[in-house]
């Protein structure tokens, strides 16, 4: 039985759109096949969350936005997120398409490719085709299938062998028209022994209705390469977000995920590292604040295949008002991944009697010679701590603020980019109603 058979688009329209964008035949086919799959597949099974009850109809239709010449033309909410200067590297997607792209001469000279994914399909077809939808596949479930059918705009970042990029590259995805399909795809390839930091922001404001943001991120970290991937989500209350982020790590490859879940609507996110290579390493940090009547489901995963591969996953979530969060950590160590080590911690702090939090740490281990550990806790603000702070003259409000920020601090303080730390700080304050 299929729960939802109405698809947001039909095959003819999808084909016509693909052709009008001069997409290669393989891509048109990938889209139409995925649409067919979307009609057959079920929604993903998400732990303790009935996403079938979420508002998942509002994919809208493809709407091309006009290119802009300068970031000055962007709304203030977007400009606040970026540092635009000569050396900055920035891609901005508005609604269904990318409107601004900038890559410094320096990085161009080093062979770095940083462009919207639609352009990359045309200009770097082989490279894109070899990777696109190989980490997250169309046939996983209805959501991934719909993404493969509908994706638009997006980012393609390629860092050549041995190139070390020492400035962060940034993308901003924003929606201000709920009737426009918003399904950016990020494809990042860090070739052997390269290094890169990439940061992106998702936001919607002034949207005129309900919107689904169905996003996928695929990261390929080749041998010895190191990727720092930071992503901050601040979509409006009317946006339902479904995101899959997945990294594939070769030998001695390294990824650091930094995720700020600051959406205002229902959100399902799944951040996953596939540690295929020996000696590969994944470090995932998630901070989240839920408010209103948000339903949230955050999953972090590490799959160990490589010997001596290591993973750390930390999620810290603060839930206020009637928000509820299900937080899953899944560390899986496959047979043969000897000397692997996987650690995870999930903590939820609840600020009101109606807030809900549930932490589910799971270790699945098929190899004897490994280390793994988990810790999870769900609790309220500690009254003794508030009393202690207040006994020094600090007001209750300020005491609570200190405790909440203290709870998030172990993650926030590890964030390597100051701009991002400040952004998160501001978003956290906003979400906490301060």
């Amino acid at each position, binding site marked *: 039985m299929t729960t939802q058979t109405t698809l947001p688009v039909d095959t003819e329209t999808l084909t016509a759109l693909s052709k009008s964008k001069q997409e290669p035949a393989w891509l048109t086919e990938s889209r139409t096949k995925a649409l067919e799959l979307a009609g057959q597949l079920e929604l993903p099974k998400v732990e303790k969350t009935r996403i079938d009850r979420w508002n998942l109809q509002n994919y809208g239709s493809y709407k091309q936005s006009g290119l802009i010449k300068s970031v000055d033309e962007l709304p203030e909410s977007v400009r606040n997120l970026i540092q635009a200067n000569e050396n900055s590297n920035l891609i901005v997607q508005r609604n269904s398409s990318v409107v601004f792209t900038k890559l410094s001469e320096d990085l161009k000279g080093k062979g770095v490719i940083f462009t919207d994914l639609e352009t990359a399909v045309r200009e770097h077809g082989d490279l894109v085709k070899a990777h696109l939808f190989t980490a997250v596949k169309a046939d996983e479930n209805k959501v991934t299938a719909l993404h493969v059918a509908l994706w638009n705009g997006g980012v393609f970042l390629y860092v050549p062998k041995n190139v070390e990029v020492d400035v962060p590259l940034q993308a901003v995805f924003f929606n201000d028209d709920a009737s426009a399909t918003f399904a950016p795809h990020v494809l990042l390839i860090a070739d052997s022994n390269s290094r890169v930091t990439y940061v992106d922001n998702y936001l919607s404001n002034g949207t005129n209705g309900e919107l689904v943001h169905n996003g996928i991120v695929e990261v390929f970290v080749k041998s010895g390469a190191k990727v720092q991937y930071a992503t901050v989500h601040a979509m409006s209350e009317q946006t339902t977000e479904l995101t899959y982020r997945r990294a594939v790590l070769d030998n001695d490859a390294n990824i650091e995920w930094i995720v700020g879940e600051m959406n205002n609507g229902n959100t399902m996110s799944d951040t996953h590292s596939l540690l295929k290579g020996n000696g590969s390493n994944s470090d995932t940090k998630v901070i989240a604040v839920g408010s209103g009547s948000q339903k949230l489901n955050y999953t972090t995963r590490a799959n160990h295949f490589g010997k001596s591969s290591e993973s750390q996953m930390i999620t810290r979530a603060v839930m206020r008002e009637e928000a509820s969060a299900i937080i899953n950590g899944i560390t899986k160590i496959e047979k043969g991944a000897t000397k692997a080590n996987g650690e995870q911690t999930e903590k939820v702090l609840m600020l009101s009697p109606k807030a809900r939090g549930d932490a589910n740490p799971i270790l699945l281990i098929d190899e004897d010679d490994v280390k793994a550990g988990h810790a999870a806790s769900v609790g309220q603000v500690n009254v003794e701590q508030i009393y202690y702070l*207040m006994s020094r003259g*600090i007001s*209750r409000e300020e005491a609570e603020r200190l405790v909440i920020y203290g709870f998030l601090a172990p993650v926030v303080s590890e964030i390597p980019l100051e701009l991002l730390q400040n952004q998160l700080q501001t978003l956290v304050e906003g979400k906490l109603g301060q």
Partner: protein
Amino acid sequence: MSTKFVIEGLKSTIEGKEILKGINLEIKGGEIHAIMGPNGTGKSTLASTLMGHPKYEVTAGKVTLNDEDVLEMAVDERARAGLFLAMQYPSEIAGVTNSDFLRSAINARREEGNEISLIKFIRQMESKMKELEMNPEFAHRYLNEGFSGGEKKRNEILQMMLLEPKIVILDEIDSGLDIDALKIVANGVNAMRSEERGFLIITHYQRLLNYVKPDFVHVMMQGRIVKSGGPELAERLEAEGYDWVKEELGIVDETVGQEA
């Protein structure tokens, strides 16, 4: 105005159990009072009740600081009015650095827009930490997290020194301190003695009182002050223990709230 702290007929309960059974005490600026007594006699309950710990409910009595009704005030208001309690078991708060905490506490006493400058704050904090022979690194550690018992006690004294309260209650500040640390803490207390400031030192040993001379000594049993005297009382308790007090007053079990 010189400080005057008055406790009259104070009774309080925890989880419905009456622990304080009517406490009367007056502390003036410049005075040092010591409350001594075996474990389980209600000393910490008195301290917590005065500070306004949410678990304790006042059922009778009155407490005033310079004629202001303390029991009407929220915990933070009591602190800003001049009350300070160095706790027997200070909380650990992960993620909040000691220095951020101290600065918030200082600024809570100042008008908005008139916050202490960072430089001035750091200078003050560092000089007091030096007096207490604290490693400067403790400023950047999370509040009390992973501090040893003695480090927590010093950190309590550091807060007292920076906040300059009118009434200082020290609850077992001497427990867990070796003799060197005890002297440092005592020096810190003595440095803060002033005509404007009163002290209530809770302890069950005479040890600390060798270094901080009390003007008045009170013995607490069964949730009451059962005996008061001068410094000589503390010396006798140290030499002879509490049994003679119990005998004199016909007390068999000195504890409170521990019915079988």
